[in-house]
C-alpha cells in the first residue's frame, strides 16, 4: 500500500504526459481520489499497529532501499493528500487546456516525489527526491511564462540547487563517518567529531536554504507571488514543508543523539524569531494580496524553527513532547490555511482582474464566500482558538514557559499580533464601500467552495489534536539496529 502512494501519482503523471487530450484533468481527479484513501489507510495502520518499515525489492539493510512509516511521516502524508487533492480539484476547473497540459504532469510528479520524501529512509535518495521536488516546483513557478515569473523561477532554482549541493556534500561526510546511508541506522554511529559537525552544518544550511528560513527567504515571496493561484498554493503550502520535514528528521533522529546540535539549535531559533517578525512586517506593508500571503509564509515558516531550541538543547527535557507536537501541527495548519488563502486570492483575481488590495473594496458583499474564506484562514494563521494554528501556538507557548527559555515567546506573541494586523488589513478593505462601481465577474461554484473547504479543514484539525499528538508521541521509530549486531 505504501509503494502505491508513490506509484499512483507517478503513473498518473506519465499518463497525463503521454495522453494530454481533453480528459487530462481526469488523471488528476483519479489521483486525488486514490491518494487520500491510501494515505488514510496507511495512517490508520500506523495508528493501530505502530511504526513500520517496508523493504523495496526485498534487499536487506544496509544496502537496500526502505520506506519508513511512523507518526511524523503519516501526518505529513495526510496533509499533502488533503491539500493536494483539494488543490487538484480546484486546478481542474482553473486552467485552460494549454496550461493544463503542462500543469498536470509536473504537479503529479511533484506529488509522487513529496510522498516518497515523507517515507524515505536513506539520505542519498532523500537528496534525489528533494531535487525532483525542486525541479517540478521551479517548472510550475514559470508556468505563466511572464518575465517576472521566469526570473522568480530561476532565482528559486539557483538557490535550491546550491542548497542541494551543500546537502549532498553533507551526505558525503555522513557516509565517510558512518559507512551507511540509512538515517535510522546512522544515529548511533556518529562520533560527534569534526566530520559529524561538518555534515551537520552543510546539511542544515542546504535544507534551510530550501525551506526559506530568514536569510534565504528572498526567493519565496516572488515565486508564488507571480505564479497562477493553484501553483502558489502548492509552492507555499507543500514544497517548503518537504525540506523542513527532512531537516526535522535529521536533527532529532541523527544529529541530536550525537550531541552536536546545541549551538545550532539556538541559532536556528533566533533566525526563526527574526523570520516571524520580518515576514509579518513585510506582509503588513505589501500592496498586493498575493505578496501579503507570500510574506506571511516567510513568517509562518519561522515558527517551525522554534522547535529546534526547545527540542535539541537539553536532552530528555520534560517539555520536549509539547514542542515536538507543536511543530508538525503548525506545519499542517499553515499548509491548509495558506492553500486556502492563495486559492481565495486566485478567485479575487479571476473576478476583479487584480490583486492590489486598494481595488479590493466591497468584495464582502459581492464575493461573500471568498471573503469568509479569507477570514477563516486568517483565524488559523493568527492562532485563535479553536483552529489548528491555535493548538500549535499553544503547544509552543507551553513548551517555552516550561523550559524557561522565555525569550522565544516574543515570536508567538508579537507574531500573532502582526498576523492579526495584516489579516485585518485585508478584511478591512474587503468591507469598505467602493466609491465607484468596479466590474466583477462571477466566480464558478467549485472554485469558490474548494478554498472554503481548505480553510474549514485548517480550523477543524484543531479538534483532532489528540490523535495527532498520539501519533507523534507514541508511534515514532528513530533508531534501527542491524540484525546480528548488539
Amino acid at each position, binding site marked *: 500500500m505504501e509503494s502505491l502512494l508513490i506509484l499512483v501519482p507517478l503513473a498518473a503523471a506519465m499518463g497525463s504526459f503521454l495522453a494530454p487530450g481533453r480528459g487530462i484533468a481526469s488523471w488528476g481527479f483519479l489521483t486525488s481520489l486514490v491518494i487520500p484513501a491510501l494515505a488514510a489507510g496507511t495512517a490508520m495502520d500506523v495508528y493501530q499497529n505502530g511504526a513500520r518499515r517496508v523493504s523495496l525489492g526485498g534487499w536487506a539493510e544496509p544496502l537496500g532501499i526502505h520506506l519508513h512509516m511512523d507518526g511524523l511521516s503519516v501526518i505529513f502524508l495526510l496533509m499533502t493528500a488533503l491539500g493536494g487533492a483539494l488543490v487538484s480539484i480546484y486546478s481542474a476547473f482553473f486552467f485552460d487546456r494549454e496550461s493544463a497540459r503542462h500543469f498536470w504532469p509536473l504537479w503529479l510528479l511533484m506529488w509522487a516525489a513529496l510522498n516518497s520524501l515523507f517515507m524515505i529512509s536513506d539520505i542519498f535518495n532523500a537528496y534525489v527526491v528533494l531535487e525532483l521536488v525542486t525541479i517540478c516546483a521551479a517548472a510550475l513557478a514559470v508556468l505563466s511564462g511572464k518575465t517576472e515569473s521566469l526570473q522568480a523561477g530561476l532565482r528559486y532554482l539557483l538557490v535550491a540547487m546550491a542548497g542541494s*549541493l551543500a546537502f549532498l556534500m553533507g551526505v558525503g561526510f555522513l*557516509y565517510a563517518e558512518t559507512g551507511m546511508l540509512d538515517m535510522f541506522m546512522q544515529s548511533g554511529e556518529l562520533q560527534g567529531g569534526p566530520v559529524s559537525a561538518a555534515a551537520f552544518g552543510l546539511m542544515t544550511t542546504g535544507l534551510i536554504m530550501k525551506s526559506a528560513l530568514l536569510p534565504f527567504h528572498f526567493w519565496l515571496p516572488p515565486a508564488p507571488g507571480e505564479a497562477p493561484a493553484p501553483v502558489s498554493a502548492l509552492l507555499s503550502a507543500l514544497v517548503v514543508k518537504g525540506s523542513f520535514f527532512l531537516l526535522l528528521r535529521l536533527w532529532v533522529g541523527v544529529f541530536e543523539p550525537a550531541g552536536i546540535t546545541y549551538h545550532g539549535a539556538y541559532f536556528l531559533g533566533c533566525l526563526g524569531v527574526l523570520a516571524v517578525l520580518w515576514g509579518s512586517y513585510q506582509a503588513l506593508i505589501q500592496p498586493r494580496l498575493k505578496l501579503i500571503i507570500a510574506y506571511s509564509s516567510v513568517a509562518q515558516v519561522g515558527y517551525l524553527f522554534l522547535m529546534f531550541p526547545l527540542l535539541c538543547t537539553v536532552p530528555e527535557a520534560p517539555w520536549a513532547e509539547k514542542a515536538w507536537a507543536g511543530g508538525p501541527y503548525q506545519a499542517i495548519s499553515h499548509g491548509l490555511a495558506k492553500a486556502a488563502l492563495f486559492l481565495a486570492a486566485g478567485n479575487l483575481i479571476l473576478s476583479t482582474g487584480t490583486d492590489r488590495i486598494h481595488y479590493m473594496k466591497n468584495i464582502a458583499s459581492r464575493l461573500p464566500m471568498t471573503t469568509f474564506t479569507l477570514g477563516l484562514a486568517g483565524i488559523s494563521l493568527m492562532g485563535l482558538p479553536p483552529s489548528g494554528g491555535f493548538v500549535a501556538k499553544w503547544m509552543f507557548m507551553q513548551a517555552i514557559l516550561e523550559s524557561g527559555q522565555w525569550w522565544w515567546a516574543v515570536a508567538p506573541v508579537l507574531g500573532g499580533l502582526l498576523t492579526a494586523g495584516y489579516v485585518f488589513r485585508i478584511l478591512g478593505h474587503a468591507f469598505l464601500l467602493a466609491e465607484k462601481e468596479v466590474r466583477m465577474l462571477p466566480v464558478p461554484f467549485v472554485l469558490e467552495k474548494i478554498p472554503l473547504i481548505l480553510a474549514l479543514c485548517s480550523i477543524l484539525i484543531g479538534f483532532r489534536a489528540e490523535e495527532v499528538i498520539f501519533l507523534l508521541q507514541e508511534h515514532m521509530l528513530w533508531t534501527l539496529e542491524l540484525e546480528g549486531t548488539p
Partner: protein
Amino acid sequence: MHGFYIYAVTAMLLFCLGLFGLVSHKNLLRKIVALNVMAGGVFLFFISIANLDPSGGVDPVPQAMVLTGIVVAISLTAFALCLARRIHEKTGQNELDTSCSIEGEDR
C-alpha cells in the same frame, strides 16, 4: 590515505570556489557554471571517500551515488539554461533583475 587528503581538500576548494562564483557573479551563465563547479567538487569528494576502505578495496556505493548525482546535475543545469535563455529572449539581459519588479505596477 595520503591521496585521500589531496583529493578531499581539492574537492572542498572546488566547492568553495563554485560557491564564491555563484554569489559574486551577476551574469546568469556564470552563475550556472559556478554551480557546476560546486557540483564537481561534491562529486570529487564522493570519489575520494570511496578510497577510505582500510582493507584497500574500493567502496562502490559512493561511485554509484556520483553517477546519479551527475544525472541530476545535468538535468538541473539544462533546465536552468533554458530559463536563462528565455529571460534573455524576453528582456535582452543576462542578469536577474535585483530591483525586484514584483512591486511594480500591475499590467
